[in-house]
């Protein structure tokens, strides 16, 4: 299973993803991390991932914030997106017509992360 994570503070979430991969998915997850929108490259490639986690607050040097990244991913048809956030983003997602997306609140709990990934298996 291929997972892509757009996250500003990769070291803070990396352990959680590694733990879930190790303990619940028997190392079957292939996880890639990206800290800025421009570091991903061709967004056509996003369609190859089974699930994409997007942190809303990306680095200030990121060309786009999380919402911009989500819009780019959706253009290429992948709807398996999970919003990662430490803030209340429900209203903003609703305004942008993205209320169908799953939200994983920070701090990340291993069981919640596991369940979210299992939903896309």
């Amino acid at each position, binding site marked *: 299973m291929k997972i892509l994570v757009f996250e*500003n*503070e990769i*070291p*803070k*979430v990396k*352990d*959680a993803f590694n*733990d879930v991969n*190790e*303990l619940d998915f028997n190392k079957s997850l292939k996880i890639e991390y990206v800290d800025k929108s*421009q570091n991903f490259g061709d967004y056509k490639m996003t369609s190859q991932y089974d699930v994409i986690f997007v942190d809303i*607050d990306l*680095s*200030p*040097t990121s*060309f786009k914030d999380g919402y911009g990244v989500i819009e780019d991913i959706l253009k290429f048809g992948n709807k398996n997106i999970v919003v990662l956030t*430490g*803030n209340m983003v429900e209203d903003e997602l609703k305004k942008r017509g993205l209320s169908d997306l799953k939200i994983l*609140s*920070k*701090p*990340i*709990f*291993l*069981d919640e992360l596991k369940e979210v990934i299992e939903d896309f298996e």
Partner: protein
Amino acid sequence: MSVKNLEYDIKRFNSLVLRIILVFVLNAIFFINENIFPKWVYFSSISLYVLLLFLNYLTTKNLSKGVLRLFLDCFIICVFLYKKDLDYVFNYFPFLLLLFNTQNHSSKNGKFWLFILLIHLSIFTLDNFSFKLTHHIIPGLLYIFIFILYIRNFISLFKEDMLYLVGNLFIENVNENNSHRILKNIIQQINSSKIGMFNKISEIFLFINNNEKFVLIKGSKFVTNNDLKSSINIESIIKNNDEKNIFFKDSVEIDGINYKISYWLQHKILEKDYYFLIALKKDSIFNEFLITSFRPIFEYIGRIYYMSNSLMTISNENQKIIKQKIAYVFDAQNALHYVKNKLTPITSTINLIDRYFKQKDLSAENKIYIENRLLSNNNNYEIKQIIKKAEILIKGVDNILEEKDKCISLKALIDDIRKNWLFHFNNIDDVIITVQNLKNIKIEINQMMFDFVFTDIIENINKYGKEGGKRVEISHENDIITILFSNKISDYDRDKRELDEIVNLYNLTNNDEIYNRKTHGLSFIRRLLRRKNIENKIFINKEEKTFNNEIKLKRYRDENISI
């Protein structure tokens, strides 16, 4: 204004009371004087006069009623006064009645010329068609009497209008900071009114007494230099004068302009003294009369300013409370966001412990994995840091700044850097110190604030820095300690445009833009250091491709200096 222009309401001229009095006066004249005509002529004339008046009330159209009544009045007066001695003052009484009524009821139609014409024609007839100047002078004096009454009446009405106008201006502008418009409008109204023929107001200024010095708070004119030069030294007069509601003539200079004919009007509104300076355009015998007549208007304006000021004080206090609450919510949101982000590694650790002890089917391989993970973690220190930082964030930056600078050794400060560095990078070799005798060098510093500054800078280096390219350099020269944090930029060529932009924003005087871009760490550091007036900048070393944050600290700082 002239007598001709007096508004004369002919319709209201013939009041019932006047007629009754006139009939009594004419009868008195009949009995006091010798009469030319037989008795029946006078009685039939007065009966006919009363009858025609009655018919006039009932039949004649409104527009011509007054004119006809005036003719009737003049006719009956002529009959009764014919060939009587007009040197006898009582015989002018019927004319006085006509004038009195004119003054009381004149307002609309300017037919006063007709009234004068008829009166003087009547006198001419009574004088047997000969012109006797003295007989015509007496009504002339009565006209002056009417004129004074008219002016008094007019000012009274004008005052009412002005109070209404001032009230409306206040209501219209209550939420605007343009209450000076009230003074401008007052000048405009007074100058364009009939009062303007006596004199015109050039400017109005409003002062308050602040520690025995006059302070200009409002003016009909914008003033850049509000120093007041008074010819009578008004400040000392008021200081030594316990009387309230004083009134002085003065010649003043405000903002380089001389107002030679000016009047001071004082109004005490509750505990506050307001001093109006009314500058007039020319000297006139009516000046004092006009200024004192307008006293109620200025008292009303004073009350309005007092009320407006009270409202503004309440509004400012409310705004301050609202701002504090918004700041609190903002800080709380920041703190929550910060905590949630930072807690993920800790929740992972707790989840691992849970699984280790509670999950019965945990494989041996997974147990080893969890044990290794737990051994490599140092969450205790991190939890402490997170809670401490969140507490500070929730209380706001001011809370950190309230802590006074203390004299500590430079070693204690560097230890804080080492501690943070060690936590993030597991080494202290990159903390390069080129200062001897650290313990002996004392520095005045807010240690708590710097703990946050160092934590944030080092966290940023951890997040964005390239492996192997991180260092801190601490040097000391001429009582200035320089701390330079430096890290290699992961992909300089790709990010240089954005990094340049951040550097420019950071080094700007105004912090708002960078704050809006959610660079919380950077803007937090910058806000703290700027508030303490500590020299700080970030710069890119293009050759070494490093991102640098430089702090220059004076060993001995003046606590009072702050931006």
